[in-house]
């Protein structure tokens, strides 16, 4: 009887603890939301800030002495271009690796590959940035005859390397989640392995693979240090992969430390933070809707 009571208490205790863990994520997100909005609000409603200029002008002169301008269009274009290029490289490679690891290679190669890929994920972003600044810079100048090697291509390639491990491991989980009976059925019908992958596994793991790609996008949009060093940190609308750019995150990292707390410049950096929040929110939401749509049709 006594034992039973103790079990009941510990049971509910653990239940509450787990509930707290679950809720804490929500508390953190809202806490950060509140903090970022509070810091940026003053300027946003203050009347000195023009949202139109912020979104349509490329002129980012936060410390100008004659005419301060906060135009973030080039920064937005920078973030999008680098993310787009990195996903164009990382998604095919990541999904391909996931397919190879989960379907084609032997157990030994599988173990080795997984360890190496995890190692890739463990490299700090400063190190990536340094590789971009030194090795990749000279390499791109030589290979493409580019005037400068710190550009969208450099940042995109580095971000691709950084987000590929996430895409591979989540993608592999998704492929593993497809029941073996599907594979057996496909092979029994006389399908080749490639046909099985293309016709059965990929559609079956669609949601998981999409989630993997979007996690990669999240990593790429939010990454700061590596892109700060590898993209050249230059304000311009890129016309090709060999143009240097500057991203939203890199701007916050480079300027927040030295902007006086509460100044317009400080607040406008938090408005960039709000913008970044909105971007990830939209990416998340659309992913949710897409996945729901797929499920609704099936």
């Amino acid at each position, binding site marked *: 009887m006594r034992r039973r009571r103790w079990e009941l208490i510990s049971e509910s205790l653990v239940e509450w603890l787990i509930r707290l863990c679950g809720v804490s*994520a929500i508390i*953190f*997100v809202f806490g*950060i939301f509140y*903090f*970022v909005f509070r810091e940026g609000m003053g300027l946003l409603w203050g009347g000195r800030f023009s949202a139109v200029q912020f979104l349509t002008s*490329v*002129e980012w*002169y936060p*410390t100008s*002495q*004659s*005419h301060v301008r906060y135009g973030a269009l*080039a920064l937005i274009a920078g973030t999008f271009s680098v993310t787009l290029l990195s996903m164009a490289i990382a998604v095919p490679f990541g999904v391909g690796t996931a397919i190879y690891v989960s379907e084609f290679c032997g157990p030994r190669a599988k173990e080795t590959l997984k360890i190496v890929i995890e190692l890739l994920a463990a490299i700090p972003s400063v190190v990536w940035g340094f590789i971009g*600044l*030194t090795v990749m*810079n*000279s390499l791109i*100048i030589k290979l493409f*005859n580019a*005037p*400068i*090697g*710190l550009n969208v291509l450099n940042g995109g390639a580095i971000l691709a390397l950084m987000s590929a491990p996430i895409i591979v491991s*989540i*993608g592999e*989980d*998704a492929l593993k*989640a497809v029941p073996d009976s599907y594979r057996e059925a496909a092979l029994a019908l006389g399908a080749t392995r490639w046909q099985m992958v293309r016709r059965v596994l990929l559609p079956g793991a669609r*949601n*998981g693979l999409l*989630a*993997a790609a*979007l*996690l990669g996008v*999240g990593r790429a949009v*939010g990454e*700061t240090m590596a892109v*700060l*060093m590898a993209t050249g*940190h*230059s*304000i*311009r609308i890129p016309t090709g992969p060999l143009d*240097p750019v*500057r991203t939203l995150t890199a701007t*916050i*990292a*480079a*300027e*927040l*430390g*030295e*902007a*006086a707390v509460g100044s317009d410049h400080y607040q406008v950096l938090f408005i960039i933070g709000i913008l970044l*929040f909105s971007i*990830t929110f939209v990416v*998340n939401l659309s*992913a949710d809707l897409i996945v729901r749509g797929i*499920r609704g049709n099936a």
Partner: protein
Amino acid sequence: MRKKSASIGRRLTPSLLAVSIALTWLIACGRHRAGETNQPYAHERPVIQNIGSDTMVNLAQAWAEEYAAIEPTVSVEVSGGGTGTGVAALINGTADIANCSRQMEAGEIAKVVATGGQEPVQNIVGYDALAIFAHKDNPLDEITIERLAAIYGEKGPVRSWADLGIQVPGCPSGEMILVSRQSNSGTYYYFREAILGKGVDFKLGTLDMHGSKDVVELVSRTPCAIGYSGMGYATPNVKMLRVARRPGENAFAPNVENTQTGEYPIARPLYMYTRGEPKDAVKKYLKWVQSEAGQAIVRATGYVPVVKEAELRAAVEQGAKRQ
């Protein structure tokens, strides 16, 4: 109702994204708060917090190390981050000495006073000649202030090396890559004022490096590039251009002699600011920094001392004898 069969990846998406955003922000905020954790200890071994200019960080470090040998009871903690960081630390009281590669602005001084401090006291501790760097293969040897303004200024007409009539080996496109500093570095402020003139901004599309060394590093690897940074950061892989005030006048190389005589046109004083008149350990430290012994270190780290050459030589000889 949620289906139980939803894959792991899908369930992870929102929380992982949230965590990654959270981390990004924590890192961003962490950077900002870093200076506040190092409060000086009042009654233990005196610690002098010395924060500020990135241009001066090597110099300040060298001073601190040398001073530790002379005055082992005092510890000088040096950190960089830029003049803006130093001034911010002086305003919120976490720095005893702020290293500045430009003069403090009236607004900043007012803020120090407003937060309960006395008027900041300015000490000139050396000079920095701002050098114009180009790739070592670049045939250009000298440049005028006017031309630099045409290259870097917002409405400046020079956009390519061809506009200067130059063909740089290893730079087939001829595009001029302008290397600059992040918009709140003291070097950026000084270059803007000294070269571009009051109220003129930089051209958009400059590559804004986050440190004096990075500028030189990038220029040494990029044939198309031109950049500006402290003379102390020169390496054998880059070329420093001679600079002339006006077209037709003599151009001078950035070195100690030309800076002390005032002939090199883009040199600036380096400052150390304190909150009010310095006291005790800080006062002693500043006095030492401005002495011949301290100024010999300025010379050794590639900057220009305040003290004249002959006096310095005597101090260096004395130091050699002591060791």
